[in-house]
Protein backbone atom coordinates (compact mmCIF):
# COMPACT_ATOMS: atom_id res chain seq x y z
CA UNK A 1 0.00 0.00 0.00
CA UNK A 2 1.16 3.46 -0.78
CA UNK A 3 0.00 6.96 0.10
CA UNK A 4 0.92 9.82 -2.17
CA UNK A 5 1.17 13.14 -0.39
CA UNK A 6 0.85 16.33 -2.42
CA UNK A 7 2.75 19.58 -1.94
CA UNK A 8 -0.15 20.92 0.12
CA UNK A 9 -0.02 17.88 2.43
CA UNK A 10 3.67 18.39 3.05
CA UNK A 11 3.03 22.06 3.75
CA UNK A 12 0.45 21.13 6.39
CA UNK A 13 2.90 18.67 7.97
CA UNK A 14 5.69 21.25 8.06
CA UNK A 15 3.43 23.96 9.52
CA UNK A 16 2.48 21.56 12.31
CA UNK A 17 6.11 20.95 13.24
CA UNK A 18 6.81 24.67 13.14
CA UNK A 19 4.09 25.16 15.74
CA UNK A 20 5.30 22.24 17.84
CA UNK A 21 8.86 23.56 17.94
CA UNK A 22 7.65 27.14 18.33
CA UNK A 23 5.75 26.27 21.49
CA UNK A 24 8.90 24.72 22.93
CA UNK A 25 10.85 27.83 21.98
CA UNK A 26 8.36 30.20 23.68
CA UNK A 27 8.38 28.12 26.86
CA UNK A 28 12.15 28.03 27.04
CA UNK A 29 12.37 31.22 29.11
CA UNK A 30 10.07 29.81 31.76
CA UNK A 31 12.27 26.83 32.63
CA UNK A 32 14.05 28.19 35.70
CA UNK A 33 13.82 25.38 38.28
CA UNK A 34 13.78 21.62 38.03
CA UNK A 35 10.11 21.70 39.04
CA UNK A 36 9.32 23.96 36.05
CA UNK A 37 11.01 21.53 33.71
CA UNK A 38 9.83 18.23 35.19
CA UNK A 39 6.52 19.12 36.83
CA UNK A 40 5.40 22.25 34.92
CA UNK A 41 5.60 24.13 38.22
CA UNK A 42 2.02 23.02 38.93
CA UNK A 43 0.72 25.94 36.89
CA UNK A 44 -1.48 24.58 34.13
CA UNK A 45 -5.27 25.11 33.85
CA UNK A 46 -7.54 22.09 34.07
CA UNK A 47 -8.81 22.05 30.49
CA UNK A 48 -5.22 21.83 29.23
CA UNK A 49 -4.12 19.09 31.64
CA UNK A 50 -7.40 17.30 30.93
CA UNK A 51 -6.88 17.13 27.18
CA UNK A 52 -3.19 16.28 27.67
CA UNK A 53 -4.19 13.50 30.08
CA UNK A 54 -6.26 12.01 27.31
CA UNK A 55 -3.76 12.71 24.58
CA UNK A 56 -0.76 11.20 26.37
CA UNK A 57 -2.52 7.88 26.03
CA UNK A 58 -3.57 8.58 22.44
CA UNK A 59 -0.35 7.26 21.01
CA UNK A 60 0.20 4.82 18.23
CA UNK A 61 -1.22 1.91 20.16
CA UNK A 62 -4.53 3.65 20.70
CA UNK A 63 -5.20 5.03 17.24
CA UNK A 64 -3.88 2.12 15.20
CA UNK A 65 -4.66 -0.61 17.71
CA UNK A 66 -8.24 0.35 18.50
CA UNK A 67 -9.17 0.49 14.82
CA UNK A 68 -7.55 -2.92 14.40
CA UNK A 69 -9.58 -4.26 17.34
CA UNK A 70 -12.72 -2.67 15.91
CA UNK A 71 -12.22 -4.80 12.82
CA UNK A 72 -11.23 -7.94 14.75
CA UNK A 73 -13.76 -7.80 17.61
CA UNK A 74 -16.37 -5.25 16.52
CA UNK A 75 -18.10 -2.92 18.95
CA UNK A 76 -17.02 -5.07 21.91
CA UNK A 77 -13.80 -3.08 21.72
CA UNK A 78 -15.78 -0.23 23.33
CA UNK A 79 -15.41 -2.08 26.64
CA UNK A 80 -11.88 -0.65 26.77
CA UNK A 81 -13.57 2.74 27.06
CA UNK A 82 -17.01 2.34 28.59
CA UNK A 83 -16.10 -0.35 31.10
CA UNK A 84 -12.38 0.22 31.48
CA UNK A 85 -11.13 3.76 31.05
CA UNK A 86 -14.07 5.95 32.12
CA UNK A 87 -14.85 4.38 35.52
CA UNK A 88 -11.11 4.29 36.27
CA UNK A 89 -10.75 7.98 35.40
CA UNK A 90 -13.67 8.90 37.64
CA UNK A 91 -12.17 6.83 40.47
CA UNK A 92 -8.81 8.55 40.04
CA UNK A 93 -10.44 11.98 40.15
CA UNK A 94 -12.61 11.41 43.18
CA UNK A 95 -10.60 9.08 45.38
CA UNK A 96 -6.94 9.03 44.38
CA UNK A 97 -6.06 12.49 43.11
CA UNK A 98 -6.29 14.07 46.59
CA UNK A 99 -3.40 11.82 47.71
CA UNK A 100 -1.24 12.30 44.64
CA UNK A 101 -1.73 16.05 44.49
CA UNK A 102 -2.15 16.69 48.21
CA UNK A 103 0.93 14.79 49.38
CA UNK A 104 4.31 16.29 48.63
CA UNK A 105 5.07 13.50 46.20
CA UNK A 106 6.48 14.65 42.88
CA UNK A 107 5.87 11.34 41.16
CA UNK A 108 3.95 8.11 41.59
CA UNK A 109 7.04 6.17 42.80
CA UNK A 110 7.67 8.94 45.32
CA UNK A 111 4.17 8.46 46.67
CA UNK A 112 5.09 4.81 47.27
CA UNK A 113 8.18 5.92 49.17
CA UNK A 114 6.17 8.27 51.41
CA UNK A 115 3.41 5.72 51.94
CA UNK A 116 5.48 2.54 52.23
CA UNK A 117 9.26 2.47 52.06
CA UNK A 118 12.35 2.85 49.94
CA UNK A 119 12.38 -0.64 48.43
CA UNK A 120 8.80 -0.40 47.16
CA UNK A 121 9.62 2.93 45.52
CA UNK A 122 12.86 1.57 44.07
CA UNK A 123 11.11 -1.42 42.52
CA UNK A 124 8.42 0.77 40.96
CA UNK A 125 10.76 3.57 39.86
CA UNK A 126 13.29 1.33 38.16
CA UNK A 127 10.78 -0.90 36.40
CA UNK A 128 8.83 2.19 35.29
CA UNK A 129 11.91 4.00 33.99
CA UNK A 130 12.99 0.99 31.94
CA UNK A 131 9.45 0.53 30.67
CA UNK A 132 9.04 4.13 29.48
CA UNK A 133 12.23 4.28 27.43
CA UNK A 134 11.40 0.99 25.77
CA UNK A 135 7.83 2.08 25.02
CA UNK A 136 9.15 5.28 23.57
CA UNK A 137 11.49 3.25 21.38
CA UNK A 138 8.64 1.02 20.24
CA UNK A 139 6.59 4.11 19.27
CA UNK A 140 9.50 5.43 17.30
CA UNK A 141 10.04 2.12 15.53
CA UNK A 142 6.36 1.78 14.64
CA UNK A 143 6.26 5.31 13.24
CA UNK A 144 9.37 4.83 11.12
CA UNK A 145 8.12 1.50 9.81
CA UNK A 146 4.82 3.10 8.83
CA UNK A 147 6.54 6.00 7.07
CA UNK A 148 8.78 3.56 5.20
CA UNK A 149 5.81 1.46 4.14
CA UNK A 150 3.40 4.26 3.20
CA UNK A 151 5.63 6.98 1.85
CA UNK A 152 8.79 5.12 1.05
CA UNK A 153 10.80 7.26 3.44
CA UNK A 154 14.12 6.00 4.67
CA UNK A 155 13.70 4.13 7.98
CA UNK A 156 16.81 5.51 9.67
CA UNK A 157 16.11 9.07 8.56
CA UNK A 158 12.52 8.84 9.80
CA UNK A 159 13.73 7.69 13.21
CA UNK A 160 16.34 10.40 13.50
CA UNK A 161 14.08 13.24 12.36
CA UNK A 162 11.12 12.27 14.57
CA UNK A 163 13.37 11.73 17.58
CA UNK A 164 15.09 15.05 16.95
CA UNK A 165 11.81 17.00 16.88
CA UNK A 166 10.62 15.37 20.11
CA UNK A 167 14.00 16.00 21.71
CA UNK A 168 14.05 19.68 20.80
CA UNK A 169 10.62 20.54 22.09
CA UNK A 170 11.03 18.67 25.37
CA UNK A 171 14.57 19.93 25.89
CA UNK A 172 13.35 23.51 25.48
CA UNK A 173 10.08 23.49 27.33
CA UNK A 174 10.06 20.35 29.47
CA UNK A 175 6.79 18.83 30.61
CA UNK A 176 4.84 22.02 29.81
CA UNK A 177 5.94 21.78 26.21
CA UNK A 178 4.96 18.11 26.03
CA UNK A 179 1.56 18.89 27.59
CA UNK A 180 0.83 21.82 25.28
CA UNK A 181 1.77 19.78 22.25
CA UNK A 182 -0.44 16.96 23.42
CA UNK A 183 -3.37 19.38 23.39
CA UNK A 184 -2.45 20.47 19.88
CA UNK A 185 -2.32 16.83 18.87
CA UNK A 186 -5.69 16.15 20.48
CA UNK A 187 -7.35 18.72 18.23
CA UNK A 188 -5.44 17.43 15.20
CA UNK A 189 -6.71 13.89 15.82
CA UNK A 190 -10.30 14.99 16.33
CA UNK A 191 -10.37 17.39 13.38
CA UNK A 192 -8.36 15.04 11.17
CA UNK A 193 -10.32 11.85 11.84
CA UNK A 194 -13.86 13.22 12.09
CA UNK A 195 -14.19 13.80 8.31
CA UNK A 196 -12.67 10.36 7.72
CA UNK A 197 -15.33 8.73 9.87
CA UNK A 198 -18.02 10.87 8.25
CA UNK A 199 -17.02 9.78 4.74
CA UNK A 200 -16.55 6.12 5.67
CA UNK A 201 -19.90 5.98 7.42
CA UNK A 202 -21.61 7.65 4.48
CA UNK A 203 -19.94 5.19 2.12
CA UNK A 204 -21.16 2.18 4.06
CA UNK A 205 -24.68 3.66 4.14
CA UNK A 206 -25.02 4.82 7.74
CA UNK A 207 -25.18 3.03 11.08
CA UNK A 208 -28.14 0.76 10.33
CA UNK A 209 -26.66 -0.33 7.01
CA UNK A 210 -23.36 -0.97 8.80
CA UNK A 211 -25.14 -3.25 11.29
CA UNK A 212 -26.60 -5.27 8.42
CA UNK A 213 -23.23 -5.49 6.66
CA UNK A 214 -21.55 -6.68 9.85
CA UNK A 215 -23.85 -9.72 10.06
CA UNK A 216 -21.90 -11.82 7.52
CA UNK A 217 -18.66 -10.81 9.26
CA UNK A 218 -19.96 -12.48 12.42
CA UNK A 219 -21.71 -15.48 10.87
CA UNK A 220 -18.75 -16.34 8.60
CA UNK A 221 -16.67 -16.79 11.75
CA UNK A 222 -19.32 -18.89 13.43
CA UNK A 223 -20.81 -16.27 15.74
CA UNK A 224 -24.36 -15.00 16.19
CA UNK A 225 -25.41 -12.34 13.61
CA UNK A 226 -25.23 -9.32 15.93
CA UNK A 227 -21.84 -10.10 17.48
CA UNK A 228 -19.99 -7.22 15.77
CA UNK A 229 -22.60 -4.55 16.51
CA UNK A 230 -23.79 -5.44 20.03
CA UNK A 231 -21.37 -4.83 22.86
CA UNK A 232 -22.88 -6.87 25.71
CA UNK A 233 -25.40 -9.27 24.17
CA UNK A 234 -22.77 -11.91 23.42
CA UNK A 235 -20.72 -11.75 26.62
CA UNK A 236 -22.61 -14.57 28.34
CA UNK A 237 -20.02 -17.24 27.59
CA UNK A 238 -16.46 -17.08 26.36
CA UNK A 239 -17.13 -19.00 23.16
CA UNK A 240 -19.91 -16.65 21.97
CA UNK A 241 -17.66 -13.77 20.99
CA UNK A 242 -14.35 -13.18 19.19
CA UNK A 243 -12.74 -11.72 22.33
CA UNK A 244 -12.93 -15.17 23.89
CA UNK A 245 -13.94 -13.75 27.26
CA UNK A 246 -17.16 -13.93 29.25
CA UNK A 247 -18.53 -10.86 31.01
CA UNK A 248 -16.90 -11.64 34.36
CA UNK A 249 -13.39 -12.07 32.93
CA UNK A 250 -13.85 -8.90 30.91
CA UNK A 251 -15.22 -6.75 33.74
CA UNK A 252 -12.76 -8.02 36.36
CA UNK A 253 -9.68 -8.39 34.16
CA UNK A 254 -10.04 -5.50 31.74
CA UNK A 255 -12.42 -3.18 33.56
CA UNK A 256 -11.07 -3.47 37.06
CA UNK A 257 -7.49 -4.72 37.16
CA UNK A 258 -5.96 -3.54 33.89
CA UNK A 259 -7.80 -0.25 33.41
CA UNK A 260 -7.66 0.93 37.01
CA UNK A 261 -4.04 -0.21 37.12
CA UNK A 262 -3.19 1.85 34.06
CA UNK A 263 -5.23 5.02 34.55
CA UNK A 264 -4.78 5.31 38.32
CA UNK A 265 -1.14 4.31 38.81
CA UNK A 266 0.74 4.92 35.57
CA UNK A 267 2.84 8.02 36.13
CA UNK A 268 2.71 8.84 32.42
CA UNK A 269 -0.94 9.88 32.69
CA UNK A 270 -1.04 10.82 36.38
CA UNK A 271 1.85 13.25 35.80
CA UNK A 272 -0.45 15.37 33.60
CA UNK A 273 -2.99 15.75 36.39
CA UNK A 274 -0.23 16.53 38.90
CA UNK A 275 0.86 19.47 36.73
CA UNK A 276 -2.51 21.19 37.25
CA UNK A 277 -2.58 24.56 38.98
CA UNK A 278 -4.77 23.62 41.96
CA UNK A 279 -6.18 20.61 43.77
CA UNK A 280 -9.55 21.20 42.20
CA UNK A 281 -7.98 21.45 38.73
CA UNK A 282 -6.03 18.24 39.38
CA UNK A 283 -9.21 16.43 40.35
CA UNK A 284 -11.12 17.78 37.36
CA UNK A 285 -8.31 16.73 34.95
CA UNK A 286 -9.39 13.07 34.52
CA UNK A 287 -13.04 14.14 34.47
CA UNK A 288 -12.47 16.63 31.67
CA UNK A 289 -10.56 13.90 29.84
CA UNK A 290 -13.42 11.43 30.36
CA UNK A 291 -15.90 13.45 28.30
CA UNK A 292 -14.12 13.21 24.92
CA UNK A 293 -12.87 9.73 25.90
CA UNK A 294 -16.48 8.61 26.05
CA UNK A 295 -16.98 9.60 22.42
CA UNK A 296 -13.65 8.35 21.10
CA UNK A 297 -14.92 4.93 20.08
CA UNK A 298 -16.64 6.77 17.21
CA UNK A 299 -13.28 8.08 16.03
CA UNK A 300 -11.04 5.06 16.56
CA UNK A 301 -13.20 1.91 16.78
CA UNK A 302 -15.93 2.72 14.27
CA UNK A 303 -13.49 3.06 11.32
CA UNK A 304 -12.27 -0.48 11.99
CA UNK A 305 -15.83 -1.81 12.03
CA UNK A 306 -16.61 -0.03 8.76
CA UNK A 307 -13.44 -1.35 7.16
CA UNK A 308 -14.22 -4.97 8.00
CA UNK A 309 -17.82 -4.57 6.80
CA UNK A 310 -16.67 -3.17 3.44
CA UNK A 311 -14.02 -5.87 3.24
CA UNK A 312 -16.62 -8.59 3.81
CA UNK A 313 -18.81 -7.06 1.10
CA UNK A 314 -15.99 -7.58 -1.38
CA UNK A 315 -14.02 -4.34 -1.20
CA UNK A 316 -10.29 -4.75 -0.68
CA UNK A 317 -9.83 -2.24 2.13
CA UNK A 318 -7.44 -3.76 4.60
CA UNK A 319 -4.15 -4.70 2.95
CA UNK A 320 -2.77 -8.18 3.46
CA UNK A 321 0.23 -8.71 5.67
CA UNK A 322 3.29 -10.81 4.92
CA UNK A 323 1.50 -13.99 6.01
CA UNK A 324 -1.44 -13.45 3.63
CA UNK A 325 -4.01 -12.57 6.30
CA UNK A 326 -5.40 -9.02 6.63
CA UNK A 327 -2.99 -6.72 8.47
CA UNK A 328 -5.47 -5.02 10.78
CA UNK A 329 -2.90 -2.49 11.96
CA UNK A 330 -3.06 -0.95 8.51
CA UNK A 331 -6.79 -0.18 8.80
CA UNK A 332 -6.44 3.52 9.60
CA UNK A 333 -3.72 4.29 7.03
CA UNK A 334 -5.74 2.38 4.43
CA UNK A 335 -8.88 4.40 5.14
CA UNK A 336 -6.91 7.66 5.09
CA UNK A 337 -5.60 6.92 1.64
CA UNK A 338 -8.98 5.63 0.41
CA UNK A 339 -11.18 8.57 1.39
CA UNK A 340 -9.16 11.73 1.95
CA UNK A 341 -8.17 13.93 -1.01
CA UNK A 342 -4.98 15.98 -0.99
CA UNK A 343 -5.45 18.73 1.55
CA UNK A 344 -7.44 16.87 4.13
CA UNK A 345 -5.09 13.94 3.68
CA UNK A 346 -2.34 16.18 4.99
CA UNK A 347 -4.37 16.90 8.13
CA UNK A 348 -5.18 13.22 8.70
CA UNK A 349 -1.64 12.11 8.08
CA UNK A 350 -0.19 14.84 10.31
CA UNK A 351 -2.60 13.76 13.06
CA UNK A 352 -1.37 10.19 12.75
CA UNK A 353 2.27 11.21 12.89
CA UNK A 354 1.60 13.56 15.78
CA UNK A 355 0.02 10.76 17.77
CA UNK A 356 3.14 8.62 17.46
CA UNK A 357 5.37 11.48 18.50
CA UNK A 358 3.29 12.55 21.45
CA UNK A 359 3.19 8.93 22.60
CA UNK A 360 6.94 9.06 22.57
CA UNK A 361 7.09 12.48 24.27
CA UNK A 362 4.77 11.30 27.04
CA UNK A 363 7.13 8.46 27.83
CA UNK A 364 10.21 10.64 27.72
CA UNK A 365 8.77 13.28 30.08
CA UNK A 366 7.69 10.59 32.54
CA UNK A 367 11.12 8.98 32.26
CA UNK A 368 13.15 12.13 32.90
CA UNK A 369 11.14 12.94 36.03
CA UNK A 370 11.34 9.47 37.56
CA UNK A 371 15.00 9.22 36.66
CA UNK A 372 15.90 12.64 38.10
CA UNK A 373 13.86 12.56 41.31
CA UNK A 374 13.39 8.90 42.12
CA UNK A 375 16.63 7.38 40.96
CA UNK A 376 19.28 10.07 40.56
CA UNK A 377 18.35 12.28 43.51
CA UNK A 378 17.51 9.32 45.74
CA UNK A 379 20.33 6.89 45.07
CA UNK A 380 23.09 8.57 43.10
CA UNK A 381 23.46 12.23 44.00
CA UNK A 382 21.27 13.47 46.85
CA UNK A 383 21.44 16.98 48.28
CA UNK A 384 22.62 18.85 45.21
CA UNK A 385 21.33 22.28 44.19
CA UNK A 386 18.09 22.53 42.28
CA UNK A 387 20.03 23.86 39.31
CA UNK A 388 21.91 20.61 39.25
CA UNK A 389 18.66 18.63 39.03
CA UNK A 390 17.35 20.90 36.28
CA UNK A 391 20.55 20.11 34.39
CA UNK A 392 20.07 16.41 35.13
CA UNK A 393 16.48 16.59 33.88
CA UNK A 394 17.76 17.91 30.56
CA UNK A 395 20.50 15.29 30.38
CA UNK A 396 17.94 12.57 31.15
CA UNK A 397 15.80 13.88 28.29
CA UNK A 398 18.68 13.54 25.85
CA UNK A 399 19.70 10.16 27.26
CA UNK A 400 16.10 8.93 27.19
CA UNK A 401 15.80 9.82 23.52
CA UNK A 402 19.13 8.22 22.64
CA UNK A 403 18.13 5.01 24.42
CA UNK A 404 14.76 5.14 22.63
CA UNK A 405 16.54 5.34 19.29
CA UNK A 406 18.66 2.37 20.31
CA UNK A 407 15.52 0.43 21.28
CA UNK A 408 13.87 1.31 17.98
CA UNK A 409 16.78 -0.17 16.04
CA UNK A 410 16.81 -3.15 18.36
CA UNK A 411 13.11 -3.67 17.67
CA UNK A 412 13.69 -3.55 13.94
CA UNK A 413 16.36 -6.25 14.20
CA UNK A 414 15.02 -8.52 16.94
CA UNK A 415 11.25 -8.40 17.14
CA UNK A 416 11.20 -11.08 19.82
CA UNK A 417 13.16 -9.01 22.31
CA UNK A 418 10.47 -6.35 22.24
CA UNK A 419 7.67 -8.91 22.63
CA UNK A 420 9.56 -10.37 25.54
CA UNK A 421 10.02 -6.99 27.23
CA UNK A 422 6.40 -6.03 26.82
CA UNK A 423 5.48 -9.34 28.33
CA UNK A 424 7.67 -8.68 31.37
CA UNK A 425 6.17 -5.18 31.75
CA UNK A 426 2.77 -6.82 31.75
CA UNK A 427 3.86 -9.04 34.65
CA UNK A 428 5.09 -6.02 36.63
CA UNK A 429 2.04 -3.83 35.94
CA UNK A 430 -0.75 -6.31 36.53
CA UNK A 431 -0.60 -6.42 40.35
CA UNK A 432 0.19 -2.73 40.90
CA UNK A 433 -3.34 -1.50 41.52
CA UNK A 434 -3.76 -3.84 44.50
CA UNK A 435 -0.78 -2.17 46.19
CA UNK A 436 -2.22 1.32 45.67
CA UNK A 437 -5.71 0.33 46.74
CA UNK A 438 -4.47 -1.14 50.02
CA UNK A 439 -1.98 1.66 50.51
CA UNK A 440 -4.53 4.41 50.09
CA UNK A 441 -7.46 2.88 51.93
CA UNK A 442 -5.92 0.69 54.64
CA UNK A 443 -3.53 2.36 57.05
CA UNK A 444 -2.34 -1.00 58.38
CA UNK A 445 -0.66 -1.92 55.04
CA UNK A 446 3.11 -2.01 55.61
CA UNK A 447 6.20 -1.55 53.46
CA UNK A 448 7.14 -5.23 53.64
CA UNK A 449 3.58 -6.16 52.73
CA UNK A 450 3.56 -3.86 49.72
CA UNK A 451 6.98 -4.89 48.43
CA UNK A 452 6.61 -8.64 48.78
CA UNK A 453 3.00 -8.45 47.62
CA UNK A 454 4.18 -6.77 44.43
CA UNK A 455 6.97 -9.30 43.92
CA UNK A 456 4.55 -12.16 44.54
CA UNK A 457 1.97 -10.67 42.17
CA UNK A 458 4.57 -10.24 39.45
CA UNK A 459 5.84 -13.80 39.96
CA UNK A 460 2.30 -15.21 39.87
CA UNK A 461 1.68 -13.40 36.57
CA UNK A 462 4.81 -14.97 35.11
CA UNK A 463 3.91 -18.39 36.46
CA UNK A 464 0.36 -18.16 35.12
CA UNK A 465 1.71 -17.14 31.74
CA UNK A 466 3.85 -20.27 31.74
CA UNK A 467 0.80 -22.43 32.28
CA UNK A 468 -1.69 -20.66 30.02
CA UNK A 469 -2.15 -21.41 26.36
CA UNK A 470 -4.19 -19.74 23.66
CA UNK A 471 -5.52 -22.14 21.03
CA UNK A 472 -3.35 -22.00 17.95
CA UNK A 473 -0.67 -19.78 19.48
CA UNK A 474 2.95 -20.85 19.46
CA UNK A 475 4.36 -22.11 22.73
CA UNK A 476 6.93 -19.78 24.31
CA UNK A 477 6.54 -16.05 24.18
CA UNK A 478 2.74 -16.36 23.98
CA UNK A 479 2.62 -18.61 27.03
CA UNK A 480 2.59 -22.27 28.02
CA UNK A 481 6.36 -22.55 28.40
CA UNK A 482 5.80 -24.71 31.48
CA UNK A 483 2.68 -26.65 30.56
CA UNK A 484 -0.63 -26.18 28.76
CA UNK A 485 -2.76 -26.11 31.87
CA UNK A 486 -5.25 -23.32 31.19
CA UNK A 487 -6.58 -23.12 27.64
CA UNK A 488 -8.03 -19.88 26.20
CA UNK A 489 -9.83 -18.94 23.00
CA UNK A 490 -7.97 -15.68 22.54
CA UNK A 491 -4.84 -13.94 23.73
CA UNK A 492 -6.99 -11.18 25.12
CA UNK A 493 -8.87 -13.52 27.44
CA UNK A 494 -5.58 -15.06 28.55
CA UNK A 495 -4.28 -11.59 29.34
CA UNK A 496 -7.38 -10.57 31.31
CA UNK A 497 -7.19 -13.75 33.39
CA UNK A 498 -3.50 -13.25 34.06
CA UNK A 499 -4.28 -9.76 35.37
CA UNK A 500 -6.94 -11.12 37.71
CA UNK A 501 -4.52 -13.77 39.05
CA UNK A 502 -1.71 -11.27 39.58
CA UNK A 503 -3.95 -8.71 41.25
CA UNK A 504 -5.52 -11.23 43.61
CA UNK A 505 -2.15 -12.70 44.58
CA UNK A 506 -0.73 -9.26 45.29
CA UNK A 507 -3.83 -8.24 47.26
CA UNK A 508 -3.86 -11.34 49.47
CA UNK A 509 -0.08 -11.37 50.03
CA UNK A 510 0.04 -7.66 50.90
CA UNK A 511 -2.84 -8.15 53.31
CA UNK A 512 -1.30 -11.17 55.08
CA UNK A 513 2.27 -9.87 55.23
CA UNK A 514 1.06 -6.50 56.50
CA UNK A 515 -0.80 -8.18 59.33
CA UNK A 516 2.28 -10.24 60.18
CA UNK A 517 4.72 -7.31 60.16
CA UNK A 518 4.89 -4.24 62.35
CA UNK A 519 3.85 -0.81 61.12
CA UNK A 520 6.81 1.42 60.37
CA UNK A 521 4.87 4.61 59.73
CA UNK A 522 2.87 6.43 62.39
CA UNK A 523 -0.58 7.86 61.82
CA UNK A 524 0.94 11.35 61.69
CA UNK A 525 3.36 10.32 58.94
CA UNK A 526 0.51 8.87 56.91
CA UNK A 527 -1.66 11.97 57.01
CA UNK A 528 -2.35 13.05 53.45
CA UNK A 529 -1.41 9.59 52.17
CA UNK A 530 -4.17 7.34 53.50
CA UNK A 531 -7.89 7.94 53.13
CA UNK A 532 -8.96 7.53 56.75
CA UNK A 533 -6.18 9.77 58.08
CA UNK A 534 -6.68 12.62 55.63
CA UNK A 535 -9.13 15.46 56.14
CA UNK A 536 -11.65 15.44 53.30
CA UNK A 537 -10.65 17.91 50.61
CA UNK A 538 -12.72 21.01 51.25
CA UNK A 539 -15.11 21.87 48.49
CA UNK A 540 -13.19 24.97 47.46
CA UNK A 541 -15.46 27.84 46.60
CA UNK A 542 -17.03 26.06 43.67
CA UNK A 543 -20.76 25.47 43.22
CA UNK A 544 -22.07 21.93 43.68
CA UNK A 545 -22.40 21.28 39.96
CA UNK A 546 -18.68 21.85 39.42
CA UNK A 547 -17.53 19.53 42.16
CA UNK A 548 -15.71 16.33 41.21
CA UNK A 549 -18.28 14.02 42.75
CA UNK A 550 -21.16 15.63 40.84
CA UNK A 551 -19.22 15.62 37.57
CA UNK A 552 -18.12 12.04 38.17
CA UNK A 553 -21.68 10.84 38.68
CA UNK A 554 -22.87 12.63 35.53
CA UNK A 555 -20.07 11.01 33.52
CA UNK A 556 -20.84 7.55 34.88
CA UNK A 557 -24.54 7.90 34.08
CA UNK A 558 -23.76 9.00 30.52
CA UNK A 559 -21.38 6.04 30.14
CA UNK A 560 -24.07 3.69 31.38
CA UNK A 561 -26.46 5.11 28.80
CA UNK A 562 -23.91 4.53 26.03
CA UNK A 563 -23.54 0.91 27.18
CA UNK A 564 -27.30 0.47 27.07
CA UNK A 565 -27.70 2.05 23.62
CA UNK A 566 -25.15 -0.29 22.09
CA UNK A 567 -26.00 -3.28 24.30
Amino acid at each position, binding site marked *: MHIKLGVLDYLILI*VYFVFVLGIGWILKRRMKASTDFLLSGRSIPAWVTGLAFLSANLGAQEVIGMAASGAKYGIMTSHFYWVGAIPAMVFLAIFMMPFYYGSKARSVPEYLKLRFDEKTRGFNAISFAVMTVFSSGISLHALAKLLELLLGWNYTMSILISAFIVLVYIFLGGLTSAIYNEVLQFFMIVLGFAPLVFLALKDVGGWSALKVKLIPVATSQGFAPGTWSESWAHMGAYNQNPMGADWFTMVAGLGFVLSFGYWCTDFLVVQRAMAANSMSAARRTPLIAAVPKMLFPALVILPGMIAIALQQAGGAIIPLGADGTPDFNMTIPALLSKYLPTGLLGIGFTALMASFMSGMAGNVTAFNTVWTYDIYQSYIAPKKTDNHYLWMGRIATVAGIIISIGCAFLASKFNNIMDMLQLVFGFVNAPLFATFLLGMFWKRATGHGAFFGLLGGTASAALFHGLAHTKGAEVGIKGAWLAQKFIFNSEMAQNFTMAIVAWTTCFVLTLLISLATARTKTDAELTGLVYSLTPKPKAEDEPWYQQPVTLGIIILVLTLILNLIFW
Partner: protein
Amino acid sequence: MNFDLRFPIGIMFSFYGLLLSGYGLFTNGDQALYERSLNININLGWGLVMLAFGVAMLLLSRRGRKGE
Protein backbone atom coordinates in the same frame (compact mmCIF):
# COMPACT_ATOMS: atom_id res chain seq x y z
CA MET B 1 3.46 36.05 31.98
CA ASN B 2 0.89 33.40 31.44
CA PHE B 3 0.98 31.68 28.13
CA ASP B 4 -2.48 31.16 26.67
CA LEU B 5 -2.53 28.00 24.62
CA ARG B 6 -5.77 28.99 22.91
CA PHE B 7 -3.88 31.59 20.91
CA PRO B 8 -1.48 29.29 18.98
CA ILE B 9 -4.26 26.70 18.57
CA GLY B 10 -6.47 29.42 17.12
CA ILE B 11 -3.76 30.65 14.76
CA MET B 12 -2.86 27.17 13.58
CA PHE B 13 -6.37 25.99 12.84
CA SER B 14 -7.42 29.29 11.27
CA PHE B 15 -4.46 28.92 8.97
CA TYR B 16 -5.29 25.29 8.15
CA GLY B 17 -8.93 26.28 7.64
CA LEU B 18 -8.06 29.07 5.21
CA LEU B 19 -5.60 26.84 3.40
CA LEU B 20 -8.05 23.96 2.96
CA SER B 21 -11.14 26.00 2.10
CA GLY B 22 -9.07 28.11 -0.30
CA TYR B 23 -7.77 24.96 -1.97
CA GLY B 24 -11.32 23.59 -1.94
CA LEU B 25 -12.64 26.69 -3.75
CA PHE B 26 -9.79 26.52 -6.22
CA THR B 27 -10.41 22.85 -7.01
CA ASN B 28 -14.22 23.01 -6.86
CA GLY B 29 -15.66 20.68 -9.49
CA ASP B 30 -12.45 18.67 -9.85
CA GLN B 31 -14.02 15.23 -10.16
CA ALA B 32 -10.77 13.31 -10.23
CA LEU B 33 -9.72 14.83 -6.90
CA TYR B 34 -13.02 14.39 -5.06
CA GLU B 35 -14.03 11.01 -6.42
CA ARG B 36 -12.48 9.33 -3.40
CA SER B 37 -14.39 11.55 -0.96
CA LEU B 38 -17.69 10.40 -2.51
CA ASN B 39 -17.86 13.48 -4.78
CA ILE B 40 -18.04 15.80 -1.78
CA ASN B 41 -15.75 18.82 -1.79
CA ILE B 42 -14.58 17.89 1.67
CA ASN B 43 -11.66 20.30 1.61
CA LEU B 44 -14.01 23.28 1.29
CA GLY B 45 -16.56 22.00 3.81
CA TRP B 46 -14.16 20.79 6.45
CA GLY B 47 -11.82 23.72 5.85
CA LEU B 48 -14.64 26.06 6.88
CA VAL B 49 -15.28 23.96 10.00
CA MET B 50 -11.60 24.22 10.95
CA LEU B 51 -11.60 27.94 10.25
CA ALA B 52 -14.64 28.42 12.49
CA PHE B 53 -12.91 26.41 15.24
CA GLY B 54 -9.72 28.43 14.89
CA VAL B 55 -11.53 31.76 15.01
CA ALA B 56 -13.55 30.64 18.04
CA MET B 57 -10.29 29.78 19.84
CA LEU B 58 -8.85 33.19 18.96
CA LEU B 59 -11.95 34.95 20.29
CA LEU B 60 -11.83 32.94 23.51
CA SER B 61 -8.18 33.78 23.96
CA ARG B 62 -8.88 37.48 23.39
CA ARG B 63 -11.73 37.48 25.87
CA GLY B 64 -9.45 35.70 28.37
CA ARG B 65 -6.80 38.39 28.01
CA LYS B 66 -9.31 41.19 28.54
CA GLY B 67 -10.62 39.52 31.64
CA GLU B 68 -7.22 39.69 33.34
